[in-house]
């Protein structure tokens, strides 16, 4: 992967690491915004969850993905027309790593990332509209 050096992001990452270490050692943890937290993509379909934490724990650094694959800003990827599964298969966005080589391929294990409407509602603290009522 092509990594653009950005010392600012790097120092940011060190800070995040320190925070992660703190968390792992059982300290209270106010906000996880420092590492970008959880990103919920609602386009092109509802809903896909991305955990910064998991990816960092897997040894990725901020500039592994930012900002060549993804802008730092939330919502930018979603606003692009080519933010589709098809372009993932072609190696764009998540597909840059999720190619079956570096990480599981984008066209497999869909429900690791796709949490659906139910997952989204749960995360938002909403009741899932129940169709399982009845008897």
């Amino acid at each position, binding site marked *: 992967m092509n990594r653009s050096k950005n010392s600012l992001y790097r120092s940011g990452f060190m800070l995040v690491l320190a925070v992660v270490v703190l968390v792992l050692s059982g300290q209270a943890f106010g906000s996880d915004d420092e590492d970008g937290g959880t990103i919920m993509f609602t386009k*092109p*379909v*509802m*809903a896909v969850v991305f955990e910064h934490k*998991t990816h960092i724990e897997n040894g990725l650094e901020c500039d592994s993905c930012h900002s060549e694959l993804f802008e730092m800003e939330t919502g930018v990827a979603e606003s692009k027309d080519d933010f589709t599964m098809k372009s993932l298969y072609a190696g764009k966005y998540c597909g840059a790593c999720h190619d079956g080589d570096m990480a599981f391929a984008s066209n497999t*294990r*869909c*429900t*690791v990332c*796709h*949490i*659906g*409407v*139910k*997952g989204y509602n749960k995360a938002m603290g909403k009741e899932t*509209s129940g*169709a*399982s*009522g*009845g*008897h």
Partner: protein
Amino acid sequence: MEFSELENLENEGIETLPSEERRKFLRFGMAVTGVFLGGSVLSLTSARNARGGLGPIPEAGKFPYKPHYSMVIKQNRCIDCERCKEACVKTNKVPSYGYRTTILELEKDLGNKGKERVFMPVLCNHCNRPPCVRVCPTTATYKDKKNGIVMMDKKRCIGCKTCMAACPYNARYFDEEVRAVDKCNFCFDTRLEKGETKTACAAACPAGVRIFGDLTDYDSELYALVHAPEKVVWVLRPETGAMPNVFYMND
């Protein structure tokens, strides 16, 4: 329907039913049976048990209906985007509290490997031996003699809800506005009759989960899928003997 309930079903393993036998059963009239065990273990019940629930088996190649509408659900592809539900609601005037199809969900914690989710679309199975039809006192719910779709004649429905209790798939709800039970009818009046070949939910699915078709059409994708020898096909709650026409498989 509850997952816990499904998970309590006995897993007999697929080895008890050779694929040739399975195919034979399918040709005989949709008798492949199986259980869904929490999304991780799929199995077919033994041929013996399948036969037990069958009664007289129709002759090979003789389908009870033509066309014989059916749906295959590629279950592991479902991402719960619920576009199928939206499309169904729009097409069939389903009220906000109702549903003709739903997506069940199971979440398994894989420890540090995160979570694995299983989504399972459920709709009326248009059973070959529909318990809902059997219990309806007014014949408001009936199986169409031509195409096997389990239909509702809403004018005849007296709202006793016996059919709702009888359905093993919880596929029915009471439409308060119409004062009648409503359910999936494979979009017969809203699409099929108008010349569409796909149901609204199948047409709307972005993940190719729902394949709708005619089992007597040997050239159809549906036929090929159901009869693929290497595929494990299963149905929900086979033990009820309802003989569903919605088949599940993984990719």
